[in-house]
Structures are given as structure tokens and as C-alpha cells.
């Protein structure tokens, strides 16, 4: 899932300081599950901002909402009234949420309350770790199921580098060395020969380096004939 983290409250407060009527919108998808932007977090953020305002004698009006998926315009349209009725939308979704609101209501301001971080896996409750960077060309079948692009600090294809120390990364001893892990995994699977070969330079054109990416499913796209006007989802 996409894992995000709330920005520090001070930063959020500064960001929204000039605005009076603020609608805070959370999202029930990834960010709810990673405890960053579900209903609880939205309510807590609003309450904390109100306490701060109270202390500092500032007046702002807040509305707290949550939508099913903020990255889809149909879900956002459900709360259109509230968006239009505010000076500022504070999005408690990944940056896709704030951008979807912005793209659909370009004259409105939609600010991010979260920092969107990683494609991560919950290792245990409250701990998420990065395991994919969305490079657009998956090779983990050759690396024991462990992605070196995301999990190696240097995205090496021919690791581990000389900084691998006791199976830890040179960047931080708390991080596991991805290539050490790949070596161990392949050994377990009896497939060590896979890393004996030289891996050629990666073609990064499938990643962000190839420019902004759009994935299309032609068979799923609606034809001009099928397209409907803006409609309610309920």
C-alpha cells in the first residue's frame, strides 16, 4: 500500500494560517490503514489545530470529512459542496488525493497534510517498510523475491557492495543489506547461480526517468459513445 505520514502540526498550521474556512478530507484507503489519514486521524488533526488556535487566539473554521478513495474524482464529487464552500481543502490522503481535488477544482486550493512516502509493507503494527519504488520493470523473480532497487540504498543490480557489514547496510546498521538478504534467499532456494552472472545496466525508461507514466487498459476504457456526464456514485 501507499504509506504516508502526517506532516508536523506546526508546518500544517503555518501552511493553513491565512485561511479561515478549512475542509479537512481524509481517505479510507491506504492512508487509513497506515494510520495516517483515516477518520480518526482527520478528527484528531482538526481537534489539535483547534487547540492550537485556541491557545494562540486565532479563529478558523474546520470541517472534517472522509471519502472512500480520494484519488478518484467520483468519490470526491460526493463532497463537492464542502470543497466549494471552503477557502482551503487540507487533504489527509496521499498526494494523489490532494492532486485529484486540485485537478478537479482547479480554482480551489488543496494542500497536503501528509507526506507521501513509500510503497510499503506493514512489518508489524505501526512499522512500515519500503519494498518497491515502482520502477516499472519487475525483476524480483531473479533476485529471490527481494527488490534491490527499493531495498538497496544504491539500487544496485550487482550487489552487495563493500559496505555490507554483518548483513547490514552501510547507510544505517538498522537497515538490512538487501543483497545480503538476496544471497541468503537464493542460497536457501538453491538458485545462487542467478547472482553469479553480471547484470547489465538497467533500462530506467520504464521508471519515472522515462517521463510521467500513464498505464492504459484499452478494453476497459469507455468510448466516447459510452461516456456519461458527471454523476453521483450513490
Amino acid at each position, binding site marked *: 500500500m501507499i504509506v504516508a505520514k502526517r506532516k508536523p502540526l506546526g508546518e500544517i498550521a503555518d501552511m493553513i494560517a491565512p485561511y479561515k474556512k478549512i475542509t479537512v478530507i481524509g481517505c*479510507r*484507503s491506504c492512508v*487509513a*490503514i497506515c*494510520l495516517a489519514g*483515516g*477518520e*480518526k*486521524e482527520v*478528527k484528531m488533526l482538526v481537534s489539535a489545530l483547534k487547540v492550537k488556535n485556541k491557545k494562540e487566539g486565532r479563529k478558523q473554521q474546520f470541517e472534517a470529512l*472522509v471519502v472512500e478513495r480520494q484519488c478518484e474524482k467520483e468519490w470526491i464529487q460526493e463532497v463537492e459542496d464542502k470543497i466549494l464552500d471552503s477557502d482551503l481543502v487540507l487533504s489527509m490522503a496521499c498526494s494523489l488525493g490532494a492532486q485529484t481535488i486540485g485537478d478537479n477544482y482547479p480554482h480551489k486550493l488543496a494542500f497536503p497534510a501528509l507526506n507521501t512516502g513509500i510503497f510499503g509493507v506493514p512489518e508489524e*503494527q505501526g512499522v512500515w517498510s519500503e519494498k518497491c519504488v515502482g520502477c516499472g520493470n519487475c525483476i524480483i523473480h531473479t533476485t529471490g523475491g527481494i527488490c534491490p532497487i527499493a531495498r538497496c540504498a544504491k539500487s544496485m543490480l550487482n550487489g552487495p557492495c563493500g559496505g555490507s557489514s*554483518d548483513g547490514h547496510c552501510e547507510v544505517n546498521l538498522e537497515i538490512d543489506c538487501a543483497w545480503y538478504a538476496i544471497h541468503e534467499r537464493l542460497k536457501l532456494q538453491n538458485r545462487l547461480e542467478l547472482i553469479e552472472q553480471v547484470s547489465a545496466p538497467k533500462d530506467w525508461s520504464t521508471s519515472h526517468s522515462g517521463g510521467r507514466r500513464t498505464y492504459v487498459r484499452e478494453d476497459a476504457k469507455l468510448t466516447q459513445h459510452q461516456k456519461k456526464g458527471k454523476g453521483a456514485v450513490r
Partner: protein
Amino acid sequence: MKGQIQVIGCKSCTEIPQLIDMNKLIEKASTMDLVVSTVLVGAVCDSKSIKQVVQEAKEREVDRVVVLACPKKVVNPALLAAFKKAKVNEFLVEYVNIRDEVVLPHMDDPPRAQAKAETMMVAALQKVMGLKPLETLKEQMRTRNVVVLGGGASGRKAAETAAKTGAHTIIIEKGTKSFKAPGVLMQNSVLLKSKGYGGNFVLTIRAGEKVEELQCAAIVVATGGGWTRLNGPLAKACKSALPLYELDEQIRAGKKMEGPIVIVDSPDPAGKSMQVRDYAWDESLELAIELKRRSTDSDITIVFQEMRAFGLSELRYKEAAELGVRFIRYDATGIPKIDPKEPNVVSVKDLAQGETIRLRFGTLAFASIPANDDNEGIADTLRIPMSPDGGIRHGSIQRGPVSTPRPGIFICGSALFPKTKDIAEEEGMVAGELAGEFASKGIIEYGGSVAEVTQEKCSACLTCIRTCPYEAPFIGIANKAEIRTQACQGCGMCVGICPSKAIELRNCTDDIIMQETKTMLRGDF
């Protein structure tokens, strides 16, 4: 529900110091919305008063009640029973502890006490309107079986006493031990899986070659002691470290240990020192003295956070110190550490001197307690918690001396932590009796103020499932969380942590809590 409230004031305890003007309070109550009846009685615990208030409640078609008196558990339960009879739902009777929360603590400031009591009453009136009538449900226990895991000293005693209460006992014994036991003795058997909740557990047992399912009402864990594996940061950093008993064995076998010898209380010093039982210290001291006696120049250091030995064994501390054993005490600000790059040096902040000491050692031992190697698997299967020292942790004292946090599962003997046979047997007796009593109730009462999921809000994030100590939440057919009401204890932990606010605790919702807080804050006192 229409909302017809009765307010009962009790003069018995509240007016003893003549601090609160109960008349005024009740007068105020009578002016409040939806209050249809106000009664001030001499003593609400008195059966005459109970008759009086319930009679009036009936006449005025009261459906909710606020009692201004003492804590609920102190007030005569006959009051609640009478209301129940009069068709007032028991969950709509709200008690306000005027005596202990206002009258007694604020006797030096009557005006504020009066204002506070009034605010509490107003908050209670609002709260009682937010409550919903709830039901307590009953489920039959399918059997009166009590399963005892382990046929050692404590297990046998547990089975014997449980049988005396009328329960049918089944001992699951890992080995081939044969002994006379009431009920059934299953040898060569191990617990594989467990399902269900107190009263209706379903266990999967492998007996010899066969795997079978076994229903039971209660479980006694009596799996005994064993030796712990070493884990924890110190053990990881120093691979050659020994548990105390191994050091002991080697020394007794006449092996010369490489000096200096350092004994640290635990492989995980950040864990609480309480886990290192008296027992282990007895052993450590004895060992240190033995080594010193054999050779006066052996270099022995004992590093500890808190040291307590059994009774007269305390004297050994003195003896050891006199023989030249070095003692270093630390606390949370300077726990022992081993740098993996230097695995033969432990550094620790000496509390006495306030500075960090580096101890080079030839042999390192942990005075960690011996625990059963099977504990982890058993705890895992029964979903009960472990303590950091490798024992199974028991539940709150309020739940009873041999309880686990899960109702219906009891624990005794060295599975908790090592102890002598007679103590283990005594615990076994208690555990057996409690398990037998639990099973003989025959019914599980559940419901009332339990958690409830609003499925449309649930993100199926599993947070509730991971957090609940009782296995009450589970993912249902709709791939959303649901609550196994029979297992729910009503603590509300899942409610407080749900990121989607999809769970509420019946009659203790966010709205009720926050409204009560708000009203209490509005009061000026």
C-alpha cells in the same frame, strides 16, 4: 425509547457531613428536560426505599434512571434487580458517585462541591439519554470438560481438584508418564490448535498418530519448567554466552572456565529486572561463592539491576562480597551493552560510581531464569502472552491468582516461572478449582457493553485484530471486521485504536465520552 428519567438522590452517605444540599440538587433535577420523577430517599440501599422509587418509576413510566449516591458496586444490587423487574433496562441506570468523588474529597469547600455535584448530575442526565438498552445474552457451554495441559506435579493436582467440582478432566501429557488420574489421561499428546473462547473452547490435539478435536469449557496450563533459550541483545552480541545453569553444570563437571567470569542478570537488560527471579540470584550467589572457594583469585563480577534472594539466602550476598565477588548495580540509564565488534567486553554504568565500566570477560553467563522451551508454542497456540523471561505471563490479580488474561484459561506451576514442587502443587489445586468452577457454571454470559463494528466504515486494516487481547474481533464473510461477542470483554481497546472509527463500544461511544467531558467542563467550580 421516549426518555422519561427518574433521578434518585440518596441522603445516607452523601449528607453525612452535611455538605451537599441534596434537596437543592433534586430540585434542580426536577427542572431538567425529560425528568419525570425525582426522589430523595434516606438510604437507597434500604429495601423500603427501593420499593418506593421503583413504585414511582412504574407510575411515571420511567425508562431511564440516574442514581446520585455511591459507586455502582457499593449500592445494593437489589435496586437494579427491582428496576429490571419493573422493565427498566439495567444498562439505562446510571450511577453517579457523589459520595467519593464530591462529598468526601471536597469537604473543605462546600460551594464548589455543590456546583460540581450539580454538573455531574447534568452530565449524567445527558449521558443516560445517549444510552441504549442492551441485553445480556447466554450461551450454553457444550461440555463440562476441563483440559489440563501437562501431567506433572501441578497438572495432576489441578485435575484432581477440578474433578472434585464435578468437571470432567482430560490431561494432555506430552510424554509417556503413566499415573492415576481422574477423567482421561492422554499420553504422547500435544496441543496443536485452539479456537473459541472461555466456556466453549475447541482444541486440536495430536494424540500419538491421531489428530482429534476436543471441546472444553476451561483450560489449565501446567506445562512446567525447562530451560530457556537465550535471546536478547546481549546474547546476540556475545554468541558464547551461557545460561547460568550451563555454567553451573560445566563447573560441576570440573571444567575450568576462562576468566574473568561475568554474570549479568538478563540477556535483555532493558526488560524489567523483576523478571529475574529470586531463584536465579540464589543460584548466582551460590555459584560465585563456590568459584571463589575453589580459587581465591578467580575474577567474578555480578552485574544486576535489582537483587533479591530467598529469605536467609540474602546472607550469601554478604558472604560473596567478603570473598571478593564484585557486584555492579545498574539502572535503566546505563544498561549493560556489548558491542558486537568487541564481543568480549560488556560495558555498564555503575550506579555506585556513576560512570561506565568496561568489563572484559572470558566467560559470560546470564542469571536468566529457566523456563519451558515449549512455553512460546503453547502461549502462541492459546494466544496468551509471554513474559520477557520466557515464562507464560499471568493475568491481572483482579482476575484471580492463577488466571491468564483470557477468561477460562488458568495457569499454574513452573510454566509461570520456576518454583518448588510444593508451591507448584498448591497452585495446581487453586487453578483446578477455579477451572472446575468456571466449567460448572454451564453457561457463558455475554453481551452488554461490548464492541460493535459499523461495517461500511471498516477498512479491514486488521488493527483491532492485532490489538485485542481476547481474540474478539475477526474478519467475517464480508471481509470486514466483526466482533465475537462471547469473547469481547468490553475494554474498548479496539475502539480507541480503530483508524476508521468503525468500532464503537456500546453505551461508551465517542459521543457519550466527549459529551460528558464537555458538560463537565462547562460547569464552573
